[in-house]
């Protein structure tokens, strides 16, 4: 057993736990990547900065706001799409493929494509708005519209994945349970609320956790579309950590942000799993 697990545990230790330990250690130092040998032990100063600096606080708020926006839009959209696809539909496999396609497209390609689509002067979206007599929007250059624009892009990209998961959950619900509810006089809405949704709890937990994690990891949109702006409104934490470490040469601070971020994400995932845990078995 040890011989079988040994190599994998070794790889896990070297490529997962060791870097995490290094990150925790680095978060206690002040140094630059250009000269990492010249480092100063600063105790918890970096953590104090993380909790008191307005830019870092904004990055946390923006990131969790983004994740909440993505989850709140993707989950209902994907569920409705899955319910639709679960019915008797001609060419269901083709439609499912079309819905799923954005998921397998590179995040960089998608971010680049949406940058062109949302371009204020000649973008396709603004051209469409003009064509129907609506005013053009600034989208990515507007403090108010940049974050919703990226949430919209994520909705387009991630709905397919969530839909396929929901569809598989729906198809695994035994037909006799639904039939029994119908015989007992439950209408469509009652069957959905009292039968389908509770039995989909495990799938929902998985989809919510996955969407949350995907959103919290978002890096390509700020890197390619907005540079974290305007005024920090799309400065997601993954991008903020990269900027702190490589552009601002503060890897100690970036490590502290990473540690706090990791713990918060862990706590959120545990909380989601607890709140959404399945109370039914079938």
């Amino acid at each position, binding site marked *: 057993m040890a011989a079988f697990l040994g190599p994998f545990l*070794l790889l896990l*230790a*070297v490529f997962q736990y060791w870097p995490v330990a290094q990150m925790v250690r680095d978060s206690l130092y*002040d140094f*630059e*990547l*250009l*000269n*990492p040998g*010249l480092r100063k032990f600063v105790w918890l100063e970096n953590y104090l900065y993380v909790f008191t600096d307005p*830019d870092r606080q904004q990055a946390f708020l923006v990131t969790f706001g983004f994740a909440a926006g993505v989850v709140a839009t993707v989950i209902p959209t994907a569920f409705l799409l899955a319910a639709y696809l679960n019915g008797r539909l001609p060419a269901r496999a083709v439609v499912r493929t079309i819905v799923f396609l954005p998921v397998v497209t590179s995040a960089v390609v998608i971010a680049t494509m949406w940058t062109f689509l949302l*371009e*204020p*002067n*000649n973008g396709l979206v603004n051209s469409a708005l*003009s064509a129907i007599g609506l*005013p*053009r929007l*600034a989208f*990515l*250059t*507007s*403090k108010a519209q940049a974050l919703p624009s990226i949430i919209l892009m994520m909705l387009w990209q991630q709905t397919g994945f969530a839909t396929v998961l929901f569809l598989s959950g729906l198809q695994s619900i035994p037909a006799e349970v639904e039939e029994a509810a119908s015989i007992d006089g439950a209408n469509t809405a009652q069957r959905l609320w009292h039968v389908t949704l509770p039995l989909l709890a495990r799938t929902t937990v998985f989809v919510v956790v996955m969407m949350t994690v995907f959103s919290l990891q978002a890096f390509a949109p700020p890197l390619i579309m907005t*540079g*974290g*702006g*305007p*005024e920090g409104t799309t400065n997601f934490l993954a991008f903020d950590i990269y*900027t702190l470490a*490589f*552009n*601002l*040469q*503060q890897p100690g601070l970036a490590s502290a942000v990473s540690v706090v971020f990791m713990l918060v994400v862990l706590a959120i995932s545990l909380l989601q799993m607890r709140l959404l845990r399945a109370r039914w078995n079938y």
Partner: protein
Amino acid sequence: MRPLLLALALLAIPAAARADDDVSAPTAACPKGVLTLHLLKPQNNPPFPWQITAFEKDNPCIKMDIAEVPFGQLADKISVLAASGNPPDVVVYDGPNTQTYAASGILLPLDSYLPAGFKDDLVPATLIEHSYEGKLYSPGTQQTTLALFYNADMLEKAGIPTPPRELNKAWTWAQAMDAFKKCQQGEGDNVTVWGLAPSRFGAATPGFVYRDLPFLRTYGDPNAPVESSVYKTYFAVAPDGKTAQGWLNTPEAVEGATFFQGMFNTAKITPKAGIPNAFQDKKACFTLDTSYFIAGLVNNDPGFKWGVTPMPYAKTPIVHTGSITLGVMAKSRHKDEAAKFAVDLSTGKAAEEFARVQRILPVLKSVYPKIPELQQYPLNIFAQQLLQWGHPRPPSAKFAQYDKIVTDALRDIAYGADPKTRLDQAARTLQPILSR
């Protein structure tokens, strides 16, 4: 534990082995063997193959091994390699980062390798930019400045007189703004020709320090009393590069930032988002660009008459300088040979030939009289600006951080952020970084 140590040891072997691999077996022509120097450079930038070939011909016992990366990845690559145990010998990098790399101990000071009188011959802006604590870390390869290109056909059609060619008759920004407005075609959502083309520098968004910080610095005055805010505005950072508070966010800088913002939001003579080749495609009457832009217009005729006028100003004319340059890594195992490469390419006939072939602005004053094109329109405008108005981007050991934070602030101001609030925020964010 043993497998882990073995794996680490295996990983370390290539790094340790390269030092020995750098020198080949001795030959009759090269009794000490042929030395391979490792050079990291950005793609499509000097040293060009003909320069490498010429150096190798003059130094048959040295062979150059070139590694290239896209310019956008260069700074990150240098950061990573600098921390490694086996960095390249010579690195080509963006000149304003010289002080950052020097302060971090990445670059080797080159004073002892330079010919006598070299520093006196350097263009002042290059000397400031490439020096740190009195030592010179790069001899420099070329310089750049921005000037205002215009579409002469469009200006004629709009009834705008031909812009001046002389520095002492340069337009003010108010005059330039009038011309932008007159030349622009369409308004609101239906602009077909913009007065001023959007920036193509950096991420092709507004705010790139090289292009856009002079909009603020021109509201300063280097001859004003040293303690005055107007003096500090011109420099945009304290002389020691450690203070931005009170230098970047002065009332005059806010005035400049307000003018800058007005171009996008009030006058609306330039777009907030990039338009590739806006000037060449006749989608803009004017554009701010370097002397390298000339070659593009000459080699690919855009189909209209064009011209160049000096950079407009508000109170004090100023153009940012700086270009890519080369330095020797302090960790190089072959410092003397690497320094020879850097110095040979930047001095004497090689420097003259480089300026002649590539039509660049040289970093040595002595080269200027030898290149006739530099005395003639339009290159003379760039050359004169460099010598009379040129000033480096705010020199600091933390320039990379300054560049990032100020670029973001100027971008946000262009997008509509309150100029004073945003400059104050940038100064607040920068201050602890600069003073570390």
